[in-house]
């Protein structure tokens, strides 16, 4: 089972500069654990206190995972996952 994961510029230090990596898992949480095994440090940048970080967006087939179950979002072979940090700030 292979799921392609698009990695943003700022996290490519964990993927040896690769823009996309593949992983496996039947939900997002499992996928992130699988990615962590090959790219140590990545998980910490995505998850905080057991939940997705507030300012990291993850999409499965173009859907923001916050609307489809968050870390429990189900995955199947061939799904496309995109990680994008929020573009945000404040005075």
């Amino acid at each position, binding site marked *: 089972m292979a799921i392609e994961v698009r990695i943003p*510029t700022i996290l490519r230090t964990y993927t040896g500069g690769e823009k996309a990596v593949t992983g496996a898992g039947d939900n997002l949480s499992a996928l992130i654990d699988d990615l962590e095994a090959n790219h140590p440090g990545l998980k910490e940048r995505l998850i905080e206190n057991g939940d997705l970080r507030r300012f990291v967006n993850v*999409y499965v087939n173009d859907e923001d995972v916050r609307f489809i179950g968050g870390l429990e979002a189900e995955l199947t072979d061939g799904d496309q996952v995109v990680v994008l940090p929020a573009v*945000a*700030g404040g005075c």
Partner: protein
Amino acid sequence: MLTIDQATYDAIVAHAKRDHPDEACGIVAGPEGSDRPERFIEMVNAAGSPTFYEFDSTELLELYKQMWDRDEEPVIVYHSHTATEAYPSRTDIGLASEPNAHYVLVSTREHGNNDGPVEFRSYRIVEGVVTEEEVAVVPGLAA
């Protein structure tokens, strides 16, 4: 140094003035690795706030997919401060996630929606370190 053409500079300032007192935000995309801010893209501030800005998550994905298709990257990430100086706040620094981008800050605190000069400043923000840079406004980017 940030080199920006006058029309793009004016478009960023106009957006900031129009959205005042809320923060305005957007990007200027350019070919990957070129450092040329060529394509001005206004974004909606999903926070709709005078003290915070955030791109809507769906629009953010659309924007990045478009850039990937065109082999572009965000050359400028801009937003406005409407009551404070044009300097990155602690939140701005903490959330800055494009190490290759010029972070442009415009302050509309002086003239709000009206005509008049604004502060327009540019920074690099890498791993929490802010470095201000010179801004060169040119009639048009060199071919």
